[in-house]
């Protein structure tokens, strides 16, 4: 129950924050502020999405965009690794969250079988992606990139802790590494629960590690989509 409430709230909060940010960017410069009026407009804007979601064309365009982005960022065969990762991840997240939220028993039956199979592919593709992309998000690359973005005055994000606008590359790095660490924990907890070395309390521990890291993974994926993929 705690997981359901926390995960739903966090997902709603993060996505609202991200979409509100995008909505605000669409407004003329002087109107870019947090106000009741803007919030009402935002709600209307979001509600308008339902029509576009129902259109096949929207999905088609989104897919085109994703493929284009993937080809740009993952040249050659590596694009296929990205597709595998994305496809597995969509199923893993949907099946995992759906059963965690709406089915008391949790994931079971054929969806579980597929979840496990997709999990293996996800772990492999994530490892490859890590090999390919980790370098881009290492401190020595992030630092200069951040400096460059600051110089160009590229839209960043407001960090309340430091009370200043930070370059977007930082968010990208956070999203990437959270996604990787969560993926690592997901794979580790899956492996741990399958090995004959851990007793019942350990199994329970792995279960909790798995579902909370899955939440972290989904949150980081949402962030990554916003800051890395969608322009």
């Amino acid at each position, binding site marked *: 129950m705690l997981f359901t409430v926390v995960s739903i709230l966090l997902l709603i909060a993060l996505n609202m924050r991200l979409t509100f940010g995008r909505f605000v960017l669409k407004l003329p410069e002087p109107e870019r502020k947090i106000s009741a009026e803007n919030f009402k407009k935002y709600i209307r804007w979001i509600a308008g999405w339902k029509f576009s979601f129902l259109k096949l064309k929207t999905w088609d365009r989104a897919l085109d965009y994703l493929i284009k982005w993937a080809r740009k960022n993952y040249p050659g065969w590596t694009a296929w690794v990205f597709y595998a990762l994305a496809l597995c991840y969509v199923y893993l997240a949907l099946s995992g969250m759906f059963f965690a939220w709406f089915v008391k028993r*949790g994931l*079971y*039956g*054929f969806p579980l*079988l597929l979840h*496990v*199979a997709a999990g*293996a592919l996800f*772990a*492999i593709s*994530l*490892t490859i992606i*890590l*090999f390919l992309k*980790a370098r881009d998000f*290492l*401190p*020595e690359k992030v*630092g*200069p990139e951040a400096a460059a973005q600051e110089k160009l005055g590229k839209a960043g994000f407001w960090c309340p802790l430091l009370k200043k606008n930070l370059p977007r590359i930082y968010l990208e790095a956070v999203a990437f*590494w959270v996604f*990787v*660490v969560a*993926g*690592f924990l997901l*794979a*580790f907890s*899956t*492996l741990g*629960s*399958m*090995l*004959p*070395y*851990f*007793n*019942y309390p350990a*199994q*329970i521990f792995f*279960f909790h590690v798995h579902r909370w890291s899955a939440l972290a993974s989904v949150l980081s994926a949402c962030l990554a989509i916003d800051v890395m993929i969608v322009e």
Partner: protein
Amino acid sequence: MKRQKTDRQKTRGISLKAVWPMGLALVGLAVFIFITISVSRLLEARSQAGPGQEIKLKAEQKKEWTGNQLSPLHRIPLNDEFNQKIVPAAPNALPFSARYSCEPCHSYTTISQGTHFNYKNRPAVDRRTEPWFLVDDKTGVQLPVSFQKYPGFWSPEKLGLSDWKFVTLFARNLNGGGPGEPADEDQTPDSRWNVSGKLEINCLGCHHRSPLQDHSEWVKQVMRENFRWAATAASGLGEVVGMASRLPSTWSIADGPNPDDHEWAVVPQVRYNPNLFDSKNNAVLALPRPEDDRCLACHSVAPRQARSRAEVDRDVHLLAGLKCVDCHRNDLGHEMVRGYEGEKLSHSTLQVQDFTCAGCHLGQKPEKGGKGFAGRLGAPRPAHRGIPRVHFERLACTVCHSGLMPKKEPQPVYTSRANRLGIFGKAVWTSDYPWIVEPVFVREADKKVYPERMVWPAFWAEIRDGEPVPVDSQEILAAAPEVFNLKEKVASLLNSLIPLAEEGLYPGVIISEYLFEPNVDGGLKTRLLEKSPVARKDKRNEFLLVQVKQEEVKHLIPDFNPDEPPAGIEDKILSMLQNLRTLSNGRQPVFLIGRYVYRITEGYLDKAEKAGEPAPAPEICWLEGEEFKPLLSDFQVRNLETIGSGPEILTEEQVALALKKMAEAKPERKYAYVASGFVFSLDKNGKLKAGEHRAARAITWPLAHNVRPAQQALGKNGCTDCHSPNSKVFFGKIEASSPLKTAHRDSRLGADLMKTGPLFQFLFGFTFLVRPAFKLVLAGCVLLMGIILVAVVLKLAGRLSGLENGPGKNSGEE
């Protein structure tokens, strides 16, 4: 002054006038909350407590136990049912009454609420337990009877079984009380309680630690309807002779013995053993907590395949030194702890959850307060390494740890109560039916899977409004006796041929590859021959009369020259024909040899010339009119061959014939036979057809013992103990077994009963073939990701600590 006050009020910002109503409101609110909580708690307590709760609480306050660990030697006077002290040496002393002998110290009324005595009033929440079985191995009946209301269980009331009938049928494994002591208004006209006496609770049956205590004696006495004498005889305190069942129904205990009859209708009498009484006529009894043997008299289970007791492992708890009553405890109310999760006791003060598997092995669950301590009664705490949690949520502990090891098919077992185990005597008491199998794994209403025992009901039924309602098997037997007495008839015929057999050998008959011999119970025992002299699949309905002594088999019918018969042979033939005449049923038994016919004429052996062709071989026949008919009819030979050496009793032909006879006897009614998971009835053409009905479905009940050691639990060898494409647990075939030999048998897979879906389990099992590779790949991924992450963390830590400078800075410095 007034001004000052106003100023102060202004400074405080609040006036007393305003505080007063606020205080009142607060007090009112507090009173309201207090009253609401009190009333709600009171109502909650009332709703939880059933009627009589107040009385129960008072009883609980009274402490029954002084703290003494010893079980005292009982040196007590025994009283009879008239509450008179028994003087063992007195002539015509009556049997002791538990009610009046134990009552002075232990409340008989309280004890009579116990699990073993209050069958009729078992709580509705009580988990299914093994039913009683109404068995008739002539008509092929195995009908589950129970006071518990579960689908497939027939209540005695529905079957028209009065308390009297119920007790006479099942008293062998009843401890008395309950239906054995019906109130006067519950006594039915068919009962003979005034003759037999009530079947009081047999306290000594469980508590008497004496080598003289004898369950078999109890059974013999109750079968003789010596209800009031049974406890005395079984305890060994006295010897009981006589049979109440032979006494007229007008007899009562006040009539005393019948001096004119010392042989047949002998009134039961007790001869007490004076050595078991002291000089004050007090019985000296050791009555501690029950020993295991006492429990096992009614609660043992044995696989049928086991040829000796040495092959069967006992429960691991018993081997560890525990006794049955260490876990299955009770207080004075005698409501036994059964030990399953979720059990609720009505009359006991014991904490049931302490005696479940988890209660001893895991301790109390943390959410129930504290961490709890495992290891009660020395129970080891299980690690259950590598077993996913779903197993603990969806499976009972017993699934992996109890019952027989799963094989490709569940194995047939005997249970004490169903198959009459543990009764010793000249006769063989153990019955083949009901045919119980274990283990089958069934998902119950709580969504958990339990290992269970299973039986397919078999009974003759009248179809009323589309529902099969069991019919008394005696009614069926009366309608078609020749159909059901098949084996007995053949056994009688074979016994009639004894004069022809050599000394020490007994007649038998070979049909197809089976040898049938009469047994001591008047039936037939069957042996499968390695090589049969009548091996003729093409020639049906043939038989060969033989004489047998263990492995020695010879031809029975003597072949001799009838013109010069050897000395003594004709005497043997005469004797044999005389025997057969008693079974002739209007026909004449004859012995054919060559051109001659031996028959009995006016009490003498008559040898006459046979009309027509000479007999090719000597033969015993029936003469019907002018026609010679074989000794065994085609019907007998055909059906014996069909049954063969299998455990079945009936053939489809017998069932069809019986249904036909019953339809002829009562054409207005519609009859059927339920067996093997189907309802068999006659179609318009008089042919047997099988249909489905819920009344024919198998019944199951959870099993708990024998518990196997942890090393022999399912899963000990890994997941593939259960999860594989050819798993015995999921794909073991559970095929109906019944007294009827038929091809129509209900058949299911284990996965069906567990409601997990065979396809899913097949695919899931299949994944375990690739799982080692899966784990290896996953481990590789985890390792690589881990190395990279560690490297990144180290790099970041180096940067943050200043041990490693960024490339920009380094290059700047350069």
